C-alpha cells in the first residue's frame, strides 16, 4: 500500500485549504452584500499583513534571526513599484500586465536591498541584525522623504532638496515629491490579487522550507557551529532566507501601494512600530508556524474588528470599549505573556510532563 502524504505536506495542504475556504467565504459574503464596507476595506490589508507575517516568519521562525526592518523592505517594494506604475502608465496600458510587472519589480528591488543589507550584518549575531534592520528601515523612510523625482520632455530630474530645484519644464510632472510621496497611483490591488499573492507567498515559503536548502537554513537556527562543521555555508543560507523574505515583504509593499491613491512614507505606515506589529503577528501565530502567520493577522484585524463592532452594537460595554481603544496595550501584554509561557524552560518542562502524563493515561 502506498504510504499517505507526509505530515508536513498534509499540514501545508491544510493551510492552503484554510486560505482558499476563507477566500470563498469572503467572496460569498461580498456577493450577497452581507459584509459591511468597513470590513470590506480590511480585506486587502489582511492580505498584505499575511504576506508580511509569512515573510517575517521565514526569518524569525526558520532562520532564527530577528528582523525589525520588514516595514522598510515593504517600503522599498511599495515605492519602487508605485514609481514604476506611474512611470509606464502611458506606455503599458494593460492593467494586469502592468501590475504583474510592478510586483516583479517591487520584489526584485526589495530583494536587492535585503541582499545588500544582509551581507555585512548576517555575519554578526542576532541582536545586531535586529538593530541594523531597524536602522535600515529608518534610513529608507528618511531617504524617501527627501527624494524628489519628476520628468518632462527633456528627461528625468532628480533632486534631494526640493521640487523647485528640479527645474521641470511646463509639461513636466512630479512623480515622487518628498514627504508628499507618490500621488495618483491607479488602484490595482484587489482582494483576488491579494489572495493569489498570499497563495504564491505560502507556496514559495513552503517549498523553500521543505527543500534541502530549507533544512540547511533550519540547521543554522538549531546549532550554528554544528551546521558549519558539516560543511553548510552559513552566510549563503542566511542570505538566501533573508533575501527571499525581503522580496516577499516587497510584494506585500506592492499590494499596499496599489491599494492607495497616495503613497507616503511616515513613521505610522513604514516605521519601526509597523515592523513590531508584524512581529506580534508572527509571535501570536506561533514562531515557525506558517499557518499561524496566516491566521493571526486575520484574527487580530478582521475577526476582532467584527466581534468588537457586533458587541458595541448590542450596548456600550466599558471593557470592550477599553479593549478596542487600547488594542496595542493588549497586544503588548499578550506578546509578553505568550513569550513567557511558551519559551520559559521551567514552563516547558511542566507542560511536557503534563502532556506525557495524559498520553500515558490514554494508553492505559
Amino acid at each position, binding site marked *: 500500500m502506498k504510504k499517505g502524504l507526509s505530515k508536513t505536506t498534509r499540514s501545508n495542504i491544510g493551510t492552503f485549504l484554510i486560505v482558499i475556504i476563507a477566500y470563498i467565504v469572503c467572496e460569498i459574503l461580498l456577493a450577497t452584500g452581507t459584509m459591511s464596507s468597513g470590513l470590506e476595506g480590511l480585506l486587502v490589508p489582511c492580505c498584505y499583513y499575511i504576506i508580511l507575517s509569512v515573510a517575517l516568519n521565514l526569518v524569525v521562525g526558520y532562520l532564527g534571526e530577528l528582523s525589525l526592518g520588514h516595514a522598510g523592505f515593504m517600503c522599498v517594494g511599495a515605492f519602487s513599484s508605485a514609481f514604476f506604475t506611474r512611470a509606464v502608465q502611458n506606455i503599458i496600458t494593460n492593467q494586469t500586465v502592468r501590475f504583474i510587472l510592478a510586483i516583479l519589480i517591487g520584489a526584485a528591488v526589495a530583494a536587492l536591498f535585503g541582499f545588500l543589507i544582509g551581507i555585512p550584518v548576517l555575519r554578526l549575531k542576532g541582536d545586531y541584525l535586529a538593530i541594523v534592520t531597524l536602522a535600515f528601515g529608518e534610513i529608507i523612510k528618511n531617504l524617501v522623504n527627501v527624494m524628489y523625482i519628476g520628468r518632462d520632455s527633456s528627461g528625468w530630474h532628480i533632486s534631494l532638496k526640493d521640487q523647485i530645484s528640479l527645474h521641470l519644464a511646463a509639461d513636466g510632472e512630479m512623480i515622487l515629491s518628498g514627504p508628499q510621496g507618490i500621488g495618483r497611483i491607479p488602484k490595482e490591488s484587489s482582494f483576488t490579487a491579494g489572495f493569489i499573492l498570499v497563495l504564491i507567498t505560502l507556496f514559495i515559503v513552503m517549498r523553500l522550507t521543505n527543500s534541502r536548502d530549507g533544512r540547511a537554513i533550519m540547521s543554522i537556527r538549531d546549532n550554528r557551529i554544528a551546521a558549519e562543521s558539516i560543511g553548510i555555508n552559513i552566510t549563503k543560507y542566511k542570505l538566501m532566507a533573508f533575501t527571499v523574505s525581503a522580496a516577499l515583504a516587497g510584494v506585500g509593499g506592492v499590494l499596499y501601494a496599489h491599494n492607495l491613491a497616495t503613497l507616503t512614507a511616515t513613521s505610522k505606515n513604514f516605521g519601526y512600530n509597523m515592523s513590531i506589529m508584524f512581529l506580534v503577528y508572527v509571535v501570536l501565530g506561533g514562531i515557525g508556524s506558517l499557518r499561524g502567520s496566516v491566521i493571526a493577522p486575520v484574527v487580530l484585524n478582521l475577526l476582532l474588528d467584527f466581534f468588537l463592532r457586533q458587541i458595541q452594537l448590542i450596548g456600550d460595554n466599558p471593557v470592550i470599549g477599553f479593549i478596542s481603544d487600547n488594542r496595542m496595550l493588549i497586544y*503588548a501584554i499578550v*506578546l509578553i505573556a505568550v513569550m513567557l509561557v511558551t519559551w520559559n524552560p521551567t514552563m516547558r518542562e511542566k507542560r511536557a510532563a503534563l502532556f506525557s502524563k495524559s498520553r500515558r493515561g490514554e494508553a492505559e
Partner: protein
Amino acid sequence: MSFLRNLINGISLGSVYAIIALGYTMVYGIAKMLNFAHGDVIMVGAYVVFVAMSNTMPAVPAVLLSIVICTGLGILIERIAYRPLRNASSPLAVLITAIGVSYLLQNLALLIFGSNPKSFASVVNVPDLKLAGGKLTITGETIVTIVASLVIVFALTAFINKTKPGQAMVAVSEDQGAAKLMGINVNGTIALTFAIGSGLAAIAGVLLCSAYPQLTPYTGSMPGIKAFVAAVFGGIGSIPGAMIGGILLGVIEIFGKAYISSQMADAIVFAVLIIVLLVKPTGILGRQIQEKV
C-alpha cells in the same frame, strides 16, 4: 563661531547618549541581552519628574524620586519579564519579550498621559555661560549634562574596579557559570546591573527633556536606539567606549543636521552603525570575544 556652537551642542547631546549607552552596555555586557525597553525607561523617568514638578515638588527631590522609581522599574522588568527566559533555548525569546516590554511601557504612557506632547520645565538651575563677548552661549543644561556624564563615568568605573559588587559584575560578564561556582549571586548581580542602568536612564531622561522640552510617550524610543548605536560604536561592554561612542554620535548627529540635511540626521546616525559594523564590528574599544564550542 557656529562651528563651535554646533560642537558644544553635539557634545551635550552626545553626553545624554553616553549616559543612556552606559545602561545598554552594562546590561549587554553582563546579561548578554539587548534591553529594548531601556529607551522607554527614559521616558518613564521624564514623566515622573514632570508629574512631581507639576505637583509643586522642587527639582532635586523630583529627580531623586524619578531615579528611585526607574531603578525599581528596572528591577521589576528584569524579575518578571527577563529572568524566566534567561535560559530559554532561543536567544530570540528574551529579545522579543524586551520589545514587548518596550511596547507595553509606551502604550501605558499613552493611556495615562495621552499622545499630546507635554512641555517639560527644565530642572536645571545653572546660569548660562557667555563666552567670547556674548557671541557664544553655553546653556546651563549643557554644562550640567556634560558634568553629569563625566561624573557618572568616573563613578561607574570606580564602582566596577574598586568594589566587591563591581568585581562580581565583571566576573558574571566573563563567565556566569564560573562566577556562580565562586559563590557570586548571579541573579542578584544581574538585578543590580538593571537597577544601575535604569537609574541612569532616569537621569538621562531628565537631562534630555531639559534640553529638548517635548515629552511624549515616544520620547525615549529614538534616543534609546541611537544610544545603542553609540554603545556599539564605542565597543559594547566597555564603559569608556560608551562615553566616547555617545559623544562622537552626538557630534555626528548635530553636524549632520547642520551641514548636510536636517531630515537626514537620523539616517546619518544609522549609516554610522552600518559602517562601524562593516569596518570594525567590535567598536572602538571593544574586545573580540571568542566563541566556545
